[in-house]
């Protein structure tokens, strides 16, 4: 790179995305703490490992095919057009390794591609990857204490490296077919991460069934309380913290909106941050709206749950999720009100579904992410009705029906249905759920027995030494 200003823009963008990655790492730390806190002590080791090992599995599969899907599937494919070439995103691309941006070595890549992608590809890939972990991790909590880790990891790869990234290609890219044809708008991922993950979790839970002892013989649910509520709340606090990185990663930090790469208006320049649809927004806007929607969620969740810490914290999260689809454009007080509504919807829906359908969602993930996310996508259709969904001409405008169809695609088509089908297959093969006897005595029985034996031996040795 020879031009100082252009280099500064590229390297600033590279650094910007890099900063979001360790911040989003905290989401995963939070989910792990949350799950361990929510599980009973005889399941801790497997619960922790189940969530931890999705990190390498989703990472390598996202390298092998997830990243390519994002660019290749924007047209469906074959919904509005064919597969799109994405030579910088294949696992054999030079652009997926250390590269100085010159010397074209592969077909399909220009020198201009090299200049940009050699610097941005890795950090942009990682920012999307951390979203993938989040999607899989949301599912992880709801199925604790009875799913086989091997089955969960297959399902984690399905959502983390396949279905969520298909929905991102369709509805969370500047040229996705849902944006073009439905006017779909979901700036901070109410649908593309949360609704799909909630729907996906529900699809598994429908096949997996409840934990032993969750329901009485007449179907009345019992409370299986978190083993350590304080670890749960710290976990949720960490998820809030990581959410800052998540929000910032949804933006592109600096673009000349009138420039040649975008609207190409001669003689004019307007440098701004944009959302993923390349519509101008500001970090200030999303900071205001993030905090106000979080606050709305916390206030209402505290009220409806009568001060229950688990639901108050979860309600804060549901508040942010419910406003996220339009948090690039909402007024902060609108974000607060929608956040409150999202928390209310999540809380009420969780208990209604639990009672009516006997679904045992151990951490309320389907409610907090799925129902609040679905609500957030749909309500954005009313709030932003008539706004252009893109700066580019010929795209549909934002509408309630476009958003409703979008929410159905996220929650059901790419969430619940694929999860249900794969869970059914795994169930049919007898590898979805842990054996009943092991579930009764605790999944960590081996580890616990060994720890016990070790401790007894040490205690005996000390006693012998004491004489």
């Amino acid at each position, binding site marked *: 790179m020879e031009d100082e200003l252009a280099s500064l823009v590229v390297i600033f963008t590279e650094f910007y995305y890099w900063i979001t990655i360790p911040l989003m790492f905290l989401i995963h730390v939070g989910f792990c703490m949350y799950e361990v806190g929510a599980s009973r002590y005889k399941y801790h080791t497997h619960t922790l490992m189940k969530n931890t090992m999705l990190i390498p599995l989703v990472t390598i599969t996202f390298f092998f095919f997830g990243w390519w899907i994002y660019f290749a599937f924007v047209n469906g494919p074959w919904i509005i057009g064919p597969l799109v070439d994405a030579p910088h995103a294949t696992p054999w691309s030079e652009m997926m390794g250390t*590269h100085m941006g010159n010397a074209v070595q592969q077909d399909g890549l220009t020198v201009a591609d090299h200049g940009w992608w050699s610097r941005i590809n890795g950090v942009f890939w990682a920012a999307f990857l951390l979203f993938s972990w989040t999607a899989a991790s949301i599912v992880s909590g709801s199925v604790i204490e009875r799913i086989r880790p091997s089955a969960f990891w297959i399902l984690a790869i399905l959502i983390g490296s396949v279905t969520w990234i298909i929905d991102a290609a369709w509805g969370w890219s500047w040229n996705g077919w849902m944006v073009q044809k439905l006017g779909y708008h979901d700036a901070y991922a109410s649908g593309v991460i949360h609704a799909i993950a909630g729907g996906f979790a529900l699809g598994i839970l429908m096949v997996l069934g409840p934990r032993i002892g969750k329901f009485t013989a007449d179907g009345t649910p019992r409370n299986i309380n978190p083993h350590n509520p304080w670890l749960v709340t710290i976990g949720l606090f960490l998820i809030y913290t990581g959410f800052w990185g998540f929000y910032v990663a949804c933006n592109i930090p600096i673009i000349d909106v009138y420039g040649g790469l975008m609207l190409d208006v001669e003689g004019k320049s307007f440098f701004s941050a944009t959302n993923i649809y390349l519509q101008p927004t500001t970090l200030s806007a999303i900071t205001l709206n993030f905090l106000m929607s979080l606050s709305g969620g916390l206030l209402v969740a505290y009220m409806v749950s009568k001060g229950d810490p688990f639901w108050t914290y979860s309600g804060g999260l549901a508040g942010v999720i419910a406003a996220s689809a339009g948090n690039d454009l909402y007024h902060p007080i609108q974000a607060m009100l929608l956040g409150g509504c999202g928390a209310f919807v999540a809380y009420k829906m969780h208990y209604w579904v639990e009672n009516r359908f006997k679904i045992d969602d151990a951490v309320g993930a389907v409610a907090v992410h799925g129902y609040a996310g679905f609500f957030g996508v749909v309500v954005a259709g009313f709030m932003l009705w008539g706004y252009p969904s893109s700066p580019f001409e010929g795209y549909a405008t934002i509408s309630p029906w476009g958003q409703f169809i979008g929410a159905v695609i996220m929650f059901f088509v790419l969430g619940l249905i694929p999860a249900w089908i794969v869970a059914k297959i795994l169930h049919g093969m007898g590898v979805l759920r842990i054996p009943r*006897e092991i579930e009764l005595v605790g999944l960590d029985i081996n580890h616990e027995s060994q720890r016990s034996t070790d401790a007894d031996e040490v205690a005996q040795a000390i006693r012998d030494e004491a004489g």
Partner: protein
Amino acid sequence: MSTGLVDNWLNVDTFGAIYPFVGTEGFLAIVGIALWIGWHIWQIKAESTEFQQDLDNIRKQGGPGAVLDEEVSRETKDVVGR
């Protein structure tokens, strides 16, 4: 002998990929994917073995009820802490 295309840093403006063995990316992708699938096969077998051992132990001790009773009695006696 050199594993990469970099001979010196004076002409960095002409460099493309600078990792070693440029041109082997396709092969590396095949190796990576094979290792990923192999890991799943190994893990599923290991998990089945672990569960089978757990089930054998539980049955040897008289079933899940007996294991839970033993656990309660162990906690009551507090063998470790005494």
